[in-house]
């Protein structure tokens, strides 16, 4: 009877395509919405991702997420270096500063100051120049999106293309001259300002004079040192907050989840994808069963047991669900591929595929169950009705 079930399903091309389109659409919608959501959430900790060399991030205990700067005193660095299990510890400056462009306009930049001696925490991918070029006087490295976008120079003729700033160009940051010595790639974050790298000491010159300027201390653990034991020790000895890389990412995500509307709005969008998915897919499949009710009745009259009919409907649901899932997820992957490198955040880890799979299974089972109820309760005597 499986053969009959399949033929009933695929025999009517128009209806079959209708169900498939419904399921494909919902599978696509769910996958795509979740991928964008995940992409956005990944962006919140983009800077932590880029600074993957550090095992542990040390900061003021009041810091709630990576862009939440609560400076510490420089002397904290030496206390951390004295903690057991610390291989090395370097300072990191992170702050929003006003830059005056050659055109005279102002642009806020996200200034990152790296340890002068080691330049640890620098961008992992340079486009032009070398990280070491930061040692040149006034040297800064700007991220490529900023260099071609917000920091770009005005066009030569009105209406022309803006000219990206390049090596040799200068900026003025808090009345201090900065010279571009390279461009780099950074992971996109929630902060839309251009990222400008320089050395720690130069960053503190650029920054407005304050008593405390140290944003983070990046720590490398000794080999075989348990990271969590180390963070606990740092906390205990210094009273500062210390997180492993993943903990800090989590802290950041949690902050955005809790205090910004973005996750809620996107959560609603995901939910909407889910509900629309269920509605479309469930409805089309349910309609299919209703359309075939008379045939199911005939099969029942001719001796097909409820259990067999159940099997037939589940098989039908699995076929359309499986194919719809496959095409939908495929389309979402393709979509992700196409928007790669654009403003749109899109991340598709396997977990999303699994969740979509579960969602599709849920949708199919639900619509099958509703349909099955109809068929189970079907009086075979309807077969004589015309």
């Amino acid at each position, binding site marked *: *009877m499986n*053969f*009959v079930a399949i*033929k*009933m399903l*695929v*025999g*009517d091309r128009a209806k079959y395509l209708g169900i498939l389109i419904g399921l494909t659409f919902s599978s696509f919608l769910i996958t795509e919405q979740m991928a964008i959501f995940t992409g956005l959430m990944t962006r919140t900790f983009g800077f932590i991702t880029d600074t993957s060399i550090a095992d542990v991030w040390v900061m003021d205990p009041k810091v709630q997420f990576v862009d939440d700067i609560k400076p510490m005193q420089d002397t904290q660095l030496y206390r951390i270096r004295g903690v057991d299990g610390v291989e090395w510890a370097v300072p990191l400056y992170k702050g929003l500063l006003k830059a005056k462009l050659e055109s005279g306009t102002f642009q806020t930049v996200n200034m990152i100051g790296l340890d002068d001696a080691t330049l640890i925490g620098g961008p992992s991918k340079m486009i032009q120049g070398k990280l070491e070029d930061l040692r040149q006087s006034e040297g800064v490295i700007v991220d490529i999106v900023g260099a071609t976008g917000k920091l770009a120079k005005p066009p030569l003729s009105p209406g022309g293309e803006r000219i990206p700033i390049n090596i040799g160009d200068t900026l003025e940051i808090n009345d201090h001259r900065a010279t571009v010595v390279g461009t780099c790639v950074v992971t996109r974050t929630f902060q839309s300002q251009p990222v400008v790298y320089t050395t720690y000491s130069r960053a503190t010159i650029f920054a407005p004079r304050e008593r405390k300027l140290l944003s983070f201390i990046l720590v490398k653990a000794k080999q075989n040192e348990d990271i969590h034991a180390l963070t606990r020790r740092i906390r205990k000895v210094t009273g500062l907050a210390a997180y492993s890389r993943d903990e800090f990412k989590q802290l950041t995500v949690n902050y955005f989840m809790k205090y910004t509307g973005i996750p809620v709005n996107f959560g609603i969008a995901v939910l909407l994808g889910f509900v629309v998915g269920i509605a479309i897919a469930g409805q089309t499949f349910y309609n299919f069963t209703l359309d075939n009710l*008379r*045939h199911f009745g*005939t*099969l*029942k*009259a*001719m*001796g*097909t*047991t*409820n*259990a*067999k009919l159940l099997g037939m409907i589940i098989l039908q649901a699995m076929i359309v669900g499986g194919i719809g899932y496959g095409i939908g997820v495929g389309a979402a992957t393709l979509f992700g591929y196409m928007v790669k490198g654009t403003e749109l955040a899109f991340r598709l880890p396997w977990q999303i595929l699994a969740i979509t799979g579960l969602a599709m299974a849920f949708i199919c089972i639900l619509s099958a169950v509703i349909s099955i109820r109809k068929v189970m309760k079907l*009086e*075979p*005597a309807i*077969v*004589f009705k*015309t």
Partner: protein
Amino acid sequence: MVTTEKGKQPCDKVIDYSSVAVYCSGITKTYGSGHEVVHALNGISLEIYPGELMMLVGPSGCGKTTLISIMAGILDQDDGECLVFGHNYRQMREVEKTRYRGDTIGFVFQAYNLIPTLTAAENVAVPLLIRGMKRKEAIEKARETLNNVGLADRAKALPADLSGGQQQRVAIARSLVHDPKLIVCDEPTSALDHETGYKVMELLGFVAVCSGRSLVIVTHDARIFSFADRIARMDDGKIIGVANSPDKLTKK
């Protein structure tokens, strides 16, 4: 053993009056309740013998479809007894009853009820597939049966590509393919023009009644009365007369 010979059939037409194929006694059936209640059957008693072709006639709404639905085990009566080859539907569990139908009953419907996405041969194979026969074997058997109803060349056609008469012949092949002992037909010719209807009836009369198989045919069609061994006339949920020939029936 009392038998009636008719001689025209491709197999021996023998009515066995010593046993009973369908035994109905005092059957009642009402639909709905309260104000809406419809007394569809008001105490039906009727016996149909193995090998017999019984026709049920009567005005629309007199309960014919209700009666054959009960005989076929797809509807429960309120009261009275209905035994088919000695089996009492009321004593069977739902699954047993369903299986029993699959083994024992063939169905022919006024609206054919073919599955539109299956070919003629596949439609005919359905009762065999229901009983668990392998697809290849079932299709093979279905083709043979289609041959018997004169549709060997349309085995691969979809119902939509067949005429009404051809569709009903496919449906008849489907009702025969698993060799059931009782075939119930609800107005099998009323959707067909008279000539086609007559041919379909001829087919039912010739092919269906073999080896002790009984047929119950509900019909309005006076032209096919001559195929009946007996005709039961119903009115208002009751049987008002049973006769061996339409002439006797009308005289009554």
